[in-house]
């Protein structure tokens, strides 16, 4: 089975400005996305995520390297047939209504008008734009545009969905919705490739990730291989005691009213803290061990490079 995406030693240098100055943006990127998985392409702002996607879509000509989509060179427009794409900032014709826009998108795939009508209605429902379907896009909020963008990315029932910052501009509820949709894609057998610079609440949905920093992949692999089960520290919230009481056992992070948030770095000391609370007739409000998250790895690799 061919990989959904295979990128090999991709390089791109921008020449910008009136007197062109060369700036390497992608410095030899290689990774592949397997069919049927959710792949997170993560990195801080300006790392080169969008540039990688633009190379993949043929918007930018790479200086070196090869890209294959389902085993087909990305240079052929046909390689984009099984593909749906949501751009980072949704730029669409703002005088079209959502429904007209989707019909136009269907035309670009050469889909027959007969079959698109029903599909458009289904997609509008999927992304929650049923009631705004006949409103021009210029009246849409950023989040609504993002939804319209998602709908147009799905018009050809793609095998591979590429989403550039799909959670950007979304409120918490919207983020959850999009996350659920992404998971549903996977259940339908689609491959999802998406970028993000925010890690909270996406890590549980990725099968594998690649982390790009400064135009280089610094980590790639299955999430469970990257993230260990190791407990980093335990957080405890207690009330009825002064923070000073825990000196030597734990670090007090913050105090709110009579509540103290503690961070206990040695597992052996967790028991001692609990004993102390009991001895002083204090109350334990919460206790939670923090294992390593993607965010920790991310922050670690980004600050190291």
């Amino acid at each position, binding site marked *: 089975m061919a990989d959904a995406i295979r990128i090999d030693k991709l390089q791109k240098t921008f020449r910008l400005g009136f007197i062109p100055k060369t700036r390497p943006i992608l410095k030899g990127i290689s990774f592949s996305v397997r069919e049927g998985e959710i792949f997170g392409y993560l990195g801080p702002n300006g790392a080169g995520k969008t540039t990688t996607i*633009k190379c993949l879509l043929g918007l930018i000509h790479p200086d070196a390297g090869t890209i294959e989509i389902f085993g087909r060179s990305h240079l052929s427009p046909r390689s984009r047939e099984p593909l749906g794409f949501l*751009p980072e900032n949704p730029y669409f014709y703002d005088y079209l209504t959502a429904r007209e826009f989707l019909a136009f998108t269907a035309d670009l795939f050469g889909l027959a008008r007969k079959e698109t009508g029903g599909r458009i209605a289904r997609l509008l429902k999927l992304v929650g734009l049923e009631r705004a379907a006949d409103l021009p896009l210029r009246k849409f909020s950023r989040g609504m545009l993002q939804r319209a963008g998602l709908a147009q990315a799905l018009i050809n029932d793609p095998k591979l969905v590429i989403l550039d910052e799909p959670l950007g501009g979304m409120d918490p509820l919207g983020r959850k919705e999009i996350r659920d949709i992404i998971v549903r894609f996977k259940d339908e057998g689609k491959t999802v490739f998406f970028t993000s610079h925010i890690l909270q609440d996406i890590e549980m949905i990725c099968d594998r990730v690649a982390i790009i920093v400064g135009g280089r992949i610094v980590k790639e692999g299955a999430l469970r291989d990257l993230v260990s089960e190791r407990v980093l520290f335990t957080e405890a919230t207690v009330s009825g005691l002064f923070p000073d009481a825990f000196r030597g056992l734990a670090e007090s992070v913050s105090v709110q009213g009579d509540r103290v948030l503690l961070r206990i770095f040695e597992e052996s000391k967790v028991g001692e803290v609990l004993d102390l609370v009991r001895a002083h007739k204090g109350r334990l409000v919460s206790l939670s061990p923090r294992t390593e998250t993607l965010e920790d790895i991310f922050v670690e690799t980004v600050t190291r490079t």
Partner: protein
Amino acid sequence: MKIWAIAGITFKEAKRDRILYLLFFFAALGIVASRALAVLTVGDRVKIIKDVGLASISVFGVLMAILIGTGLVYKEIDKKTIFTLLAKPLHRAEFILGKFLGLVLTLFVMTLAMSLIFLAIVYAHTLKIEGVLLVAVGYIFLELVLITAVAVLFSSFSTPILSSLFALAFYLIGHLSWGLELIIKKMRPGAGKALVRALYTFLPDLENFNFKTEVVHGLPIPPGIYVSAFLYGVCYTAFILGLAVLVFRRRDFI
């Protein structure tokens, strides 16, 4: 058809452009005012109406072609709507051709509307519908098609203002280059003559599309000239569009 989808969206967008209606208004004004002008002058009034009317259609048509031609391609790149387009299974050539056809369709509708006003004004004067005038209008339209291709070519790598200036320069050169033909006739054979001849072959000669005088004065035109003017327009347009595709294919959209 993907090309038609792009042509359709281009037409839709062009229809929303106020500049188009402003130019149309001035063209209509020119055509209608030709009557007033005719009253004030001595000589053949009908001829003046026809002359001024055709000139209005030609001049404002060219301005329309240049302004919407350079504006619409650039806007697509500038507003980044092109990202979603080119991410589809679409050749860049299809994009260029679609844009071009949409613009041509727009100009066709505009030329048609201007011609109707023009024919009505002439009718008001002569009480005859003079279909032969449409021959001149047809070749004006062919010229607009070529100018549109030029506008698309320039705007595939340049800003609207520069592209408009380039396209305008193309138009002016195209209407002055026939002078070279006279020069060639008067030159002695030699390297200089060959050079000027090469220059003349390469430069556009838009006077090829000018049948205004013949039509207005009812002069006979050999059919061969019609055919060669038509072929000249079609081939030159195809050549310019080919260049536009070549330029556009090399571009990065960052």
